[in-house]
């Protein structure tokens, strides 16, 4: 067997290992219920949950509570199945948080509470709302 062949086989082997680790480390888009079940089954994997901030009948965001020192906050998110959950985040509230039309949280349930390590916001794009006035 030629050395090049050995190198080739090695490269393919490493590539397969990489595919497997990627598949293993890839996160998933889940609902709160699925995430809770997964956590209950002992999984510590981080998941993505897509949803919106809870709003009252007037369309105002409700349930956002900053900690007294303002360094962390919690909020109520409604996932795509309409399930509500309190989400904890150990950073100050991101700019434009209240204006977001969609929120993606990355994290997981710990002791039955959802802790988000990262929050991605989708804010109304300037191209959608914009109009021109004289």
């Amino acid at each position, binding site marked *: 067997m030629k050395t*090049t062949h050995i190198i080739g086989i090695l490269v393919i082997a490493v*590539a397969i290992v990489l595919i497997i680790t990627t598949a293993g480390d890839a996160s998933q*888009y889940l609902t709160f219920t699925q995430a809770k079940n997964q956590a209950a089954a002992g999984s510590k994997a981080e998941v993505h949950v897509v949803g919106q901030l809870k709003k009252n009948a007037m369309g105002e965001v409700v349930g956002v509570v900053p900690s007294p020192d303002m360094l962390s906050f*919690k909020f109520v998110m409604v996932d795509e199945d309409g399930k509500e959950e309190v989400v904890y985040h150990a950073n100050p509230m991101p*700019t434009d948080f209240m204006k977001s039309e969609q929120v993606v949280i990355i994290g997981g349930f710990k002791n039955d*509470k959802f802790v988000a390590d990262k929050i991605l916001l989708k804010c109304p794009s300037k191209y959608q709302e914009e109009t*021109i006035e004289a």
Partner: protein
Amino acid sequence: MVHYFIGNLGHFFVILSFVASLVAFIAYWRGGKDASWVRFANVTFVVHTVAVIGIVATLYFIIRNHYFEYHYAWSHSSKLLPWYYQISAFWEGQEGSFLLWMFWNVLIGVVLIRTNRDWRPSIMAVLSLTQLFLTSMILGVVIFGLKIGSSPFMLLRDVIDAPIFRTSPEFIPEDGSGLNPLLQNYWMVIHPPTLFLGFATTVVPFAFAIAGLLRGKLKEWIRPALPWAQFSALILGVGILMGAYWAYETLNFGGYWNWDPVENAIYVPWLVMVAAMHTMIVHKNNGSALKLSLILVISTFLLILYSTFLTRSGVLGESSVHSFTDLGLSGQLLIYLMVFVIGSIFLMARVWKKIPTSADEVSPYTREFWIFLGAATLCLMAFQVILPTSIPVWNRIVEFFGGTSNMAPPGDQVNFYSKIQLYMAVVLAILSGTGQFFWWQKISPKELRSKLTAPITFSLVISAIIFVTWGMYKWQYILLLTASVYSVVSNVFILLSLAKSNLRLSGGAIAHIGIAMMLIGILFSSGYSKILSVNYTGIAWNHEFPDEVNQNNLLLFQNEPRQMGDYSMVYRGMRKLTKEAGFVDANDLAPTVLPNEMIVQRASGSLNQGDTVRLINAENSYFEVHYTSENGKTFTLYPRVQINDEMDMIVYSPDIQRYWHSDIYTHVRTFPDPEAETTWSEMDTVSVAEGESFFVNDYVAHFRGIEPLTELSGVKLEEGDFALKAIIDIEGEYRTYRAEPIFIIQGLQAGRVMDQVNDLAAQITILSIDPEQRRFIFGVRGTQKDWIIMEAVQMPLINILWIGTFLLVIGLSVAISRRYREFKLMRDKAME
């Protein structure tokens, strides 16, 4: 008045450039050996070049002259934007960035026409074809209801359906909506052109490879392509690092690399280009690695197209900071990508059997063996990154076939990528340290051992000293450090031996020293970055958290120092940056009718009361933060916030204190909403006589006296009316503030004008005067002091990363000049 002519001229240039690239492609394709066709094709390409430059000039003219009747100028620029940011406004939009790419392509085309003879028609055919596709992206015509491309010369009224245009179609907005604050940074003037030059240059080695396949010159394409591959690797690398530096200085994620999909999309082709460059060198030395070089060179260009597709089709959604708005060009981009993928595979498959392979066994005692391994490692690094980056694409494909896929990118991206890239980097460092010792031909195992002894010994000793003194305990880091130090040391040995013989060959050694230093810089600055503002106290925990969480941020009230690690930090208040006097306290300035001019309210430094100061950027406010280290050294940082009302954006940017051994990086996460209403405490009343002292919000205040007034805010008092002001000095932590509340009697009415000291969060009003006792009754109210929440991070030895970058640039430049001389020598002997 709407300037119709300039837009029509722009449209004309777009269509001309499109048609010219089509004609040039056909003419070069048909041309081959026919000199008259090639001459015609050259002329067409020059017409195309002029047209592209015409588009660029026209668009810039529109932006420069604030023709806001055009959508592009209106949505990317504004009147107050300085000229250098008008340049960045040019490529903020997709259309402009495609234009930038096309612009570099035509310049490259002109260079190729001038430097090549034999290869000219075939490589120019490939280049013209890429130009055809790029021009189609900004064509902006609708054929049979199908939109092809998005033109930058659209009128605002044709893009945005606003009621105003129905009543007055000639309406032109007063001002544009401005440039995204994130892009208002000098790196955004220079980083995109560099990166797009990198994009553009990848087409050249690709064009030579395709030309080689077409013409059956399966080996000969390597020589002319090599210097271009090196140039491309250089420019792409520099572009990537400029992007990293921009992110470090402007974005708020606390570092220079975030494994963002857009960063990955350009990192991957760069790795493959570097791998291709190495296998091409192998081929030049011993004739092997031809198939591999072909595949890698072609893959690089296809990966560039793929990354263009990823970043501009909207597939990545919100997962990236570099979100281009989706212009509905994804179908067109996909066709572009597919044409080149299928075309390349077809051309390669057609001649695959004929591509010469070398029958020689690759021995571990040749340089080629080590380069092979290096190229393989680079490709695996690229593979590891492109795989998860493509997860959104994978989900789309599954959905397209009716399935559902809920795969998401890894939650902790930085950790996910870094942990594997680190091992690969170790392998690369070892290979690049060793491979260089194999000069032209094989050397014996014994010779190798004797050559390697000194560098290995040196590097082990140096690394041991470093990790003992630094206190490095993570074995992965120790491994990377040792491998990188080994690469630096052994390449320095090679450099020294070359210095005696032939410095022109030193490019590789210098570039490898650069890469190894970059690895060391990354290892320390990222692996050992230390959050200074981390909350150890435990008091501030939010009790509701189920687990202990790291709180990396610090709440600082104005003028209240906090001790954090080795530093005491204090927030001194908000500042504005003026042209006349640098940073000025925002409380001392009052607005004028012009947004970028303010009037001085209180004299300080070189400024007198009533002076007008001009702001460098009216949207920016700076938070002055003083640091005092344990040994008494002080410095001041000014992290900033940019508030853009037009776009409704609030953007924070860090400030960095640079030492040779480390950077101290500070950024503000949030501060009180300037539009929120202040809640004041209940009013306390105090009765004070002239010369007495009292407390205002816990600060000592001295009632200095009163002064009668003859006018009130510039208006003379009427006969019989009476007004006075009380002069009160309040001792703050760092300076004394003066408050001057006013009391007025007009007829039988008493009026009060309170005074407010923002820094002390205090308000004073004269409630009443007791003339007999000569006592004044003051009303005093307080509120919460101004505050910021910030993060401070120390990044050690980050300068080694930047120095390494410079060495990489120098090394690659030396290598390019060497390979280009080789090409020229052979060309001039008519042996292209």
